């Protein structure tokens, strides 16, 4: 009895060692909470603490390179796959924190921004846990940790009516979809008698399970993830929340929260429903006769088509970017459809590209809103003249989002398409390509307004602080640079596809 406990303690000790990045984030969370109580007047202190905490957590993450282990009684896994997503989440969190320093709406419409940074940290913790969760309880808790923080963040500028409205919609949709998800989890628990993804896998491999409830539970759990990645038909919250929330939070939701959603979606499918013994380079074998590939292919096609077609009619840039992020969820799902390492590597690469270009686009929107107070497309007229640097950078980001060379977005899309073609799904690639054409139309609308309209009489030139410009260049230059030379990112993505199987 005693030896078992000692064993348990040993295990706990090992686990804590591998839990260091999360621990750092939790410490940051508590520290910024306390500091905010003491130094209420300071407007940037908590932000700086958060940024430092993120950097330290990043350094701890680097220390985990190559580690693969179960921690905390197989609640969490540490593996290269989770590590990649954690980096994406952390980096986008850090960029959003830096962006927030320049946000006028945050500083002018709220009483204090202390809790804002604290909540970003909280959300990041949730996303970290989600990226490495391997137990249904952990998945649920992680999703809720990140969701509850993001509900508050979406309505942080609570004096603005649309913010509280967005936040209400977010809460309702979020609660319903997580309700559906745990109902699916309860059925899956009933069918397999376990909550651990790997045990579910083992059980499904060795036992006959009634197909209908298994399918139902799978779809219900998928619904919860689909909500997080804003896939159709669980996307309804996305445009409203992105429009109502502060720009920085829209940016965070569109990248980090989507990354966490994809991480858990891929892990859930791979760990629970893929036969590990037959897993090969060509395509994964799904156990049970559920045709996941088909279901996700439909989901991908519908998601990108709806996202792109509805985006065409938008007149608000944040809403436009919201629909564009829905469409991008569709492109990314194409990588899941492939169901093999090549597809996953393509998703990882695309995510890295998507992070940089999408954060960049939102950042430009924020800088423009700082000056003009508007996010309407019509108010972008003539900006190419009054804010040339912003115009050029926005054009770069949008071209990258469209997926035209020589930008990082093109490389991402190229790898997704080649993974899809690789597995012989030519029709899916063609649908994706046609969708890109549609997306070109509405992205072009933005820079058309910036350059072709409202040029005469020329508007007053806008000036921006050096700090904000440096951050902009830090996003714009990699977008082009990685479009030409991306080998290190590709190598990193390829080495991160291995999902630890215990």
């Amino acid at each position: 009895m005693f030896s078992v406990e000692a064993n348990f303690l040993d295990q706990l000790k090992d686990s804590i060692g591998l839990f260091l990045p999360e621990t750092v984030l939790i410490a940051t969370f508590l520290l910024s909470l306390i500091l905010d109580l003491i130094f209420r007047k300071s407007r940037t202190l908590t932000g700086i603490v958060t940024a430092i905490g993120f950097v330290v957590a990043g350094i701890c993450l680097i220390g985990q390179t190559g580690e693969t282990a179960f921690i905390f009684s197989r609640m969490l896994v540490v593996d290269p796959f989770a590590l990649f997503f954690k980096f994406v989440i952390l980096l986008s969190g850090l960029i959003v924190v830096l962006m927030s320093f320049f946000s006028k709406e945050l500083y002018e419409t709220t009483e204090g921004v202390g809790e804002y940074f604290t909540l970003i940290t909280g959300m990041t913790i949730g996303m970290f846990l989600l990226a490495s969760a391997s137990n249904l309880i952990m998945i649920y808790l992680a999703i809720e940790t990140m969701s509850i923080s993001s509900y508050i963040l979406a309505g942080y500028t609570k004096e603005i009516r649309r913010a509280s409205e967005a936040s209400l919609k977010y809460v309702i949709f979020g609660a319903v979809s997580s309700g559906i998800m745990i109902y699916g989890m309860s059925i899956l628990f009933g069918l397999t008698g376990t909550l651990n993804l790997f045990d579910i896998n083992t059980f499904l491999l060795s036992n006959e399970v009634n197909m209908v409830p298994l399918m139902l539970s799978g779809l219900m759990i998928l619904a919860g993830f689909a909500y997080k990645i804003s896939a159709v038909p669980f996307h309804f919250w996305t445009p409203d929340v992105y429009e109502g929330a502060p720009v920085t939070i829209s940016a965070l939701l569109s990248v980090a929260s989507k990354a966490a959603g994809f991480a858990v979606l891929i892990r859930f499918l791979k760990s629970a429903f893929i036969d590990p013994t037959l897993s090969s380079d060509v395509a994964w074998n799904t156990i049970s006769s559920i045709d996941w590939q088909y279901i996700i292919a439909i989901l991908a096609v519908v998601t990108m088509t709806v996202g792109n077609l509805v985006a065409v009619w938008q007149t608000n840039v944040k809403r436009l970017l919201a629909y564009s992020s829905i469409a991008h969820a569709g492109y990314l799902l194409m990588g899941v459809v492939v169901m093999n390492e090549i597809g996953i590597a393509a998703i990882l690469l695309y995510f890295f590209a998507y992070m940089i270009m999408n954060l960049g686009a939102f950042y430009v929107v924020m800088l423009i809103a700082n000056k003009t107070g508007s996010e309407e497309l019509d108010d972008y007229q003539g900006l190419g003249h009054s804010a040339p640097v912003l115009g050029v950078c926005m054009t770069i980001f949008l071209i990258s989002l469209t997926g035209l060379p020589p930008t990082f977005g093109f490389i991402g899309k190229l790898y997704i398409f080649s993974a899809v073609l690789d597995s012989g799904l030519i029709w899916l690639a063609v649908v994706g390509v046609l969708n890109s054409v549609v997306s070109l139309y509405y992205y072009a609308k933005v820079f058309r307004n910036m350059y072709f309209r409202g040029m005469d009489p020329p508007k007053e030139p806008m000036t921006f602080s050096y700090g904000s410009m440096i951050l902009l260049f830090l996003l714009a230059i990699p977008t082009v640079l990685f479009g030409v030379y991306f080998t290190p990112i590709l190598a990193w993505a390829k080495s991160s596809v291995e999902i630890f199987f215990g």
Partner: protein
Amino acid sequence: MINAIPLEYYLGLASIIFLIGTVGVLVRRNAIIVFMSIELMLNSVNLTFVGFSTYLGDTAGQVFVFFVMAVAAAEAAIGLAIVLALFRNKQTIYVDEVNVLKW
């Protein structure tokens, strides 16, 4: 005692409650009632978990229930706070009157 009532009854009841909750979310317009419906959904999940847990003799399901309860409380707290913020802005808690944002 539990053996007297078959598992199917628990599951049936839970699914009915879940459906009632879902329909409630979809048709009711009062934000408070929407939140109550969400609670119904979560409680039906709890019932399913407990039912299965007892049936399988595995306590993991019951552990899950505790977490669901805790999270539901947190979610309700947040939800009500947001409803309050909205009420201050708009003097209404009816979701169909909340329409600044639309597609």
